[in-house]
């Protein structure tokens, strides 16, 4: 009940910041950033599996949000719009970065970086540490479906894969996570 009241208050305050930010008010946009960046950072970190890259992506996401904000018409909740925009931005950057890394590093070394990230960081929850150890595709499917609540059809669409593949990756991720528990 308390959380619901807090959510309503947040949305009420947010509805004041959004028009100001749309008009170029940086202070208002900073308030929006302060409100949403931990959620976006968590999402991005879980998707990409690398802290420094997650920070870079999160920064880029908010720059994109700033640029795209005038096109926000309020047809959906701001958090939904922001979330979708950031997922697309993150996946796009991960894909681009992956192809760049692939030229210099093999997949194994990238995966090891994620695992090292998970093992040395005490700030992450137990499940986050395990998620970061998952193979990239399985991790992304698990995060989008189990954590963010997207349907397999939506996950498949976002990741450019078949719905069946999304389901298979999800079951693989769950199996791997259970083995790691």
């Amino acid at each position, binding site marked *: 009940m308390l959380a619901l009241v807090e959510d309503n208050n947040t949305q009420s305050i947010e509805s004041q910041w959004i028009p100001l930010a749309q008009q170029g008010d*940086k202070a208002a*946009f*900073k308030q929006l*950033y*302060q409100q949403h*960046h*931990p*959620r976006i*950072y*968590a999402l991005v*970190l879980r998707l990409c599996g690398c*802290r420094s890259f*997650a*920070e870079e992506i*999160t*920064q*880029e996401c*908010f*720059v994109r949000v*700033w*640029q795209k904000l005038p096109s926000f018409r309020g047809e959906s909740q701001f958090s939904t719009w922001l979330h979708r925009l950031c997922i697309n931005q993150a996946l796009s950057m991960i894909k681009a970065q992956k192809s760049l890394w692939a030229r210099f590093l093999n997949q194994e070394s990238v995966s090891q970086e994620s695992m090292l990230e998970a093992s040395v960081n005490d*700030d*992450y*929850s*137990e*499940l*986050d540490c*395990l998620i970061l150890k998952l193979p990239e595709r399985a991790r992304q499917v698990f995060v989008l479906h*189990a*954590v963010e609540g997207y349907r397999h059809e939506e996950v498949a669409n976002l990741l450019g894969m078949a719905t069946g593949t999304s389901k298979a990756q999800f079951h693989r991720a*769950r199996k791997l*996570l*259970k083995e790691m*528990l």
Partner: protein
Amino acid sequence: MNHQDKQLDALLRDLPKGIKPQNDMWRGIEQRMDVGIKDNTDSKKYNWQMFAAASLLLFSVALSWQWLFAPDAQNLQANSVMLQLIDQLQQQHQKQVQAYDITVEKVEWRSQTDLKPINNGLKEVREAAAQVIKQLKSTPNDKQLWELWLWVQQKELELLNQKQSIHQLETIHTI
């Protein structure tokens, strides 16, 4: 559902919605906010520059084509005209040659004079003409070949004329 499934679901329920990043990202975002808009402007400017460069490139290509390939096209057209001219001149010449031959055949002339040198000359001149025409069709703008061909044609007509003159003289003597 086994113990691990329950444990995983419990961890999922307790998974924090947000994670606090280790570094402050706002400063970087704030700097990028202006740069981002500037980037857009630069991007538009860049697009215009790209458009201008592409247009210039296309113009250059078109101009180069005009200079490099169009003359070839013009040359091809000119060559075609020259080849037609060669054929026409050859046909006219053959008509003149045939006119001489018909005159000789009509009178059923059998010369007492040895015409072998003239006939050999005609043979050589005609072989030369065939070679010159063949070469001229591959290089129709070769002025020297044109002059040579016209000279050979002239020589053929002169030889035919000589042949006809001998015939006329013999005819007069016979009468």
